[in-house]
C-alpha cells in the first residue's frame, strides 16, 4: 500500500520535473518537431482508418435501432454527438496510447537500459529536458489534431453509409447533425478532452519508460504499463471530464 503511494508520488514529482524542464530553446524545439513527426504524423493512417470504421459501424447500429421508432432522420444527431463527445477523443487517445505510447515507453526504456540517459546526465545535459519533454509536448499537440482527423473521417464515413448504403435522406442527415452539435459545448469538448488525454497518455508513457528497470524485461514491462495505465487513465479522465462538462 505504501509502495503504491510512493509510486504515485514519484509520478507527480516526474510531472513537476518535466514542467520545470520546458525551455523555449531551438534544440528542444527541433526535438519536439521530430517527435511530432514520429508520434503524430505517423499515427495518421491508423487514426483515419479507425475513424472511418467507427463512423460506419455507428451509423449502421444507430440506424437499426432508430428505424424501429421511425426516427431514421435523427441518425445525424446520434452519430455526431457520440463521435464528438465520446468516441472521438477516447478512441483517438486509446489508439494513440497503443501505437505511440508503447513506442515512447520502449524507446525510453531502451535508452535507460543502454545507459544513454546516464550518459546524458554525465555530460551535464538534463536528460528529462532532452528526452522526455519533447515527447510530452508532442503528445499534447498531436492528440487534438488526431482527434479532429478521427472525427472528420468518422462523420464522412457515417454520411457515406447513411445516404449511399442505407438510403437515409442526405439533407435530413446533415440538418439533424448540424442542429444538434453545439459549437462550444460539444465540439469544444472534443478538443479539451483530447488535449487532456494526450497529456495523460504521454506523461504516463514517458514516466514508465524513463523509470524502467535497466533490463530487457524492464523495457517490456514499461511498454505494457504504458498502454494499460494510459488506457485506464484515459477512460477515468473521460468520466471525470464528462461529469464536469454536464
Amino acid at each position, binding site marked *: 500500500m505504501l509502495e503504491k503511494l510512493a509510486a504515485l508520488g514519484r509520478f507527480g514529482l516526474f510531472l513537476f520535473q518535466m514542467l520545470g524542464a520546458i525551455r523555449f530553446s531551438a534544440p528542444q524545439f527541433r526535438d519536439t518537431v521530430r517527435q511530432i513527426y514520429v508520434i503524430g504524423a505517423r499515427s495518421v493512417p491508423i487514426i483515419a482508418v479507425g475513424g472511418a470504421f467507427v463512423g460506419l459501424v455507428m451509423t449502421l447500429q444507430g440506424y437499426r435501432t432508430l428505424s424501429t421508432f421511425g426516427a431514421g432522420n435523427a441518425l445525424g444527431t446520434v452519430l455526431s454527438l457520440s463521435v464528438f463527445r465520446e468516441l472521438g477523443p477516447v478512441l483517438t487517445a486509446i489508439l494513440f496510447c497503443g501505437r505511440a505510447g508503447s513506442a515512447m515507453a520502449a524507446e525510453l526504456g531502451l535508452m535507460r537500459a543502454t545507459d544513454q540517459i546516464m550518459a546524458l546526465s554525465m555530460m551535464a545535459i538534463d536528460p528529462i529536458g532532452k528526452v522526455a519533454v519533447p515527447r510530452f509536448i508532442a503528445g499534447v499537440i498531436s492528440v487534438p489534431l488526431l482527434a479532429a482527423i478521427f472525427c472528420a473521417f468518422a462523420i464522412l464515413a457515417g454520411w457515406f453509409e447513411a445516404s449511399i448504403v442505407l438510403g437515409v435522406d442526405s439533407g435530413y442527415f446533415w440538418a439533424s447533425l448540424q442542429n444538434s*452539435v453545439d*459549437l462550444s459545448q460539444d465540439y469544444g469538448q472534443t478538443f479539451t478532452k483530447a488535449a487532456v488525454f494526450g497529456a495523460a497518455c504521454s506523461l504516463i508513457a514517458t514516466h514508465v519508460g524513463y523509470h524502467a528497470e535497466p533490463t530487457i524485461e524492464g523495457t517490456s514491462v514499461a511498454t505494457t504499463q504504458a498502454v494499460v495505465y494510459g488506457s485506464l487513465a484515459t477512460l477515468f479522465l473521460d468520466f471525470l471530464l464528462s461529469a464536469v462538462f454536464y
Partner: protein
Amino acid sequence: MASPKTEWSVGAFILAGLACALALAFASTNSGDRLGGDSYRVTARFTNAGDLKARAPVKIAGVKVGEIESIELDPVTFDAKATLRLSKGVELPRDTGASIFTSGLLGERYVGLDPGGDPDALRDGDEIMLTQPAVVLEQLIGKFLFNAGSEKKSDAAPPEPAAPDAGY
C-alpha cells in the same frame, strides 16, 4: 534542423488536423445559428413556461429571429420572466404577442412572436405584454376528459330549468 522530410510531414500533419477541425466546426455544428451582430433584449412574462430553456429559438412565422437568454421566476407574482434576445434588424410593434409552441409533437419548445399593428416599436428593455403560456399535456387531457364527461351527463337527462329570478 531535422531532415526536410520530417519537417514536411509535420507541417502536412498539423495542416491536415487544423483543416479537419475547421471543416468540422463549420459543416457539422450549429455555428451558423449563433446570433451574430447587434441584438436587443425584451422581456416577457408567462404563467407557465413549460419546458422552455435558455438558448431556445424565438421565431416569427417560423423563421428564427433571436433566442431566449434566460428564464427566471418572479418571486412576487410567481410568473416566469423570460428575457428574449432579438437581432437588431427585426423591429416589432409594441402589441406583439408571444406564445410558447412545440416544434413537432415531442420536440423542443420555442417562442413564437405574433406581430401586432402598433406604430410604436419595441425597444431594448421593453416588455411584451400579450403572452400565452405553454400548453401542458396533462391539462389538455384533463379538459378533454372533463368535456367528454359533461357531454355524457347532458345526453342522459335534460338540464334542470333555471330558477326564476326573485322579484321578476
